[in-house]
């Protein structure tokens, strides 16, 4: 099959320098749109390009994406409000994470952002009470698979995903930052202690912890699927730090210093001034992040698969990994 140009590179260039789209031909526009949809950055791109001279035929689909993002944010905030109501009687500090947090606080990272599930962080010793309160308010388990359930409860940093029976929206209840099997152990208790209150009993992480949390999920945990969006988040969150100095100390406290530094280099290389010096490992990661062709398809399959293996390797010790992959394989799961 023919490959075509790397559309992810067009996407990154358009986010970095919106004026660059004025030079694109129709084929490149198609690649740009396909990559932005595949990376779930179409809303972010549409907001970035608002008011720019774009071709007549691209305008309606960008307007659609902006409308979608607006409705998405409204739905996400309503969901956060419902979780707040469900947990109000517990007196538990409810900390919003990721997209919902960015939307609630009106951060740049939230502008046009795709928001999937509601992610919240609660103190680990309150987990049983939180689970019971969510059940009472209409949430239920998504996949009642005994292996997955036991796996989540024993090893993961969050409860198995729950879905609301009537609103059909998912909630991820985090109690720590990374899976308990990961090598880094960011301090969730410290993050909750430093959380910043918004209105209505909702909180978001401190500016430094927002960066640390986004970085932890990108580099310590993930196989970098959706990495372009995560790094856009990180780029915006770093740019919005009121004071850049305390970040390193905070990252060190969470055991994430090298990861935060790498994320800063990657964000600079993709979306920033491209002034920071890259390591050869950075370059491999960038190759992985930009692996998408003009049809929005994933390319560099072997490299992707290597990152998929790596993500599991980082997440769990070898024997446990072997057992996990064997169980999943027998259940018919295949990496795509």
């Amino acid at each position: 099959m023919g490959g075509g140009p790397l559309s992810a590179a067009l996407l990154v260039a358009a986010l970095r320098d919106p004026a660059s789209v004025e030079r694109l031909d129709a084929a490149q526009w198609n690649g740009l749109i396909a990559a932005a949809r595949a990376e779930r950055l179409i809303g972010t791109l549409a907001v970035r390009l608002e008011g720019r001279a774009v071709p007549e035929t691209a305008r309606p689909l960008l307007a659609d994406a902006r409308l979608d993002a607006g409705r998405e944010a409204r739905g996400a905030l309503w969901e956060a409000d419902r979780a707040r109501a469900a947990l109000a009687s517990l007196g538990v500090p409810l900390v919003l994470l990721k997209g919902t947090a960015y939307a609630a606080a009106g951060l740049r990272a939230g502008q046009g952002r795709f928001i999937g599930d509601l992610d919240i962080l609660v103190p680990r010793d309150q987990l049983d009470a939180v689970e019971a309160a969510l059940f009472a308010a209409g949430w239920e388990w998504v996949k009642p698979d005994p292996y997955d359930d036991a796996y989540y409860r024993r090893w993961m940093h969050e409860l198995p995903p729950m879905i609301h029976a009537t609103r059909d929206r998912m909630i991820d209840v985090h109690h720590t930052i990374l899976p308990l099997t990961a090598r880094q152990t960011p301090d969730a208790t410290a993050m909750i202690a430093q959380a910043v209150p918004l209105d209505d009993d909702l909180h978001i992480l401190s500016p430094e912890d927002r960066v640390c949390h986004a970085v932890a999920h990108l580099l310590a945990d993930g196989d970098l699927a959706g990495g372009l969006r995560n790094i856009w988040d990180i780029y915006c969150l770093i740019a919005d730090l009121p004071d850049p100095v305390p970040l390193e100390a905070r990252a060190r406290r969470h055991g994430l210093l090298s990861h935060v530094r790498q994320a800063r280099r990657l964000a600079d290389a993709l979306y920033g001034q491209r002034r920071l010096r890259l390591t050869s490992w950075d370059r491999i990661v960038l190759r992985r992040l930009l692996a998408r062709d003009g049809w929005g398809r994933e390319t560099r399959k072997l490299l992707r698969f290597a990152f998929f293996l790596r993500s599991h390797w980082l997440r769990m010790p070898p024997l446990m990994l072997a057992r996990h992959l064997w169980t999943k394989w027998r259940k018919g799961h295949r990496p795509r």
Partner: protein
Amino acid sequence: MTHAISLRIGPATFRVGSAWPGPLRDLARLYADYPAPLDAIADYTVRLELAGWARRWVRPSIFITGDHGLADAAPMSLAHGLLAAEMGMNLQMALGWRRHLLLHASSVEKDGRVLVMTGESGSGKSTLAAQLGERGWRLMGDEFALLDLHSGDIFAFPRLISLKNRAIDVIAGDVPASRLGPMLRGTAKGDIRHLVPRADAVARMDEGAPPALLLFPRFGHAVDVRPVAQGETFMRLTQASTNYVALGEPGFAALTRFVTHVPACAIDFPSGDEAIALVEQLWAEAL
């Protein structure tokens, strides 16, 4: 991808890429008289990919995806490649379209007013629209009716009509072979043959018109007509819409306006001829 084509159907443009030339050859022939897209920037990308590494040659199978896709979609035989391409385009509309409220319904127009017909697969709405489209009505679409959020008009999405099973015999005999796609036997929905809408349906595909009557047809029962109340119509149309929830308040407002202005009936009929007589009678009464 190796093979590609761009199409415009009503307000939507598609870029369809395929690992094989066959499905796109059929598309090119059947959509030959549709107006070309304004430029090559498409609203949606559709991809007909190999369903597995060896599937180009060994029992060739297509995985349908694109800007919007379903991870667990069943692969389709290359012999049904035209159907796969059509399903790929429908999938983009169903999951992605936001410029109208999308109703899973067929629609036809006469004298500047639109008849909308909705129902489950097998209800006869598609066949009925195809038959009316051959008998003096302008066919607007057999799959999706587009309800404008601002004006309340219905807009057309006149893709190929997919005739199924017995409907193929009813209609295929009366139209020239140039308007028919290949016979696709043994698909998940039985035998399917695609029909190109008449030239007027294609030439006027950008024209909307106000809706005047909504029918819930049901094939295979003795003739019967029952009015359907506004509340029930509203609920049934929310279920027949793929983007009602995604549109939020504008979708609610458009649908409210539709059900308060458009009379609705459920109709049962045992055969196509009786259905057409019934529709013409109800249409005359509604105007």
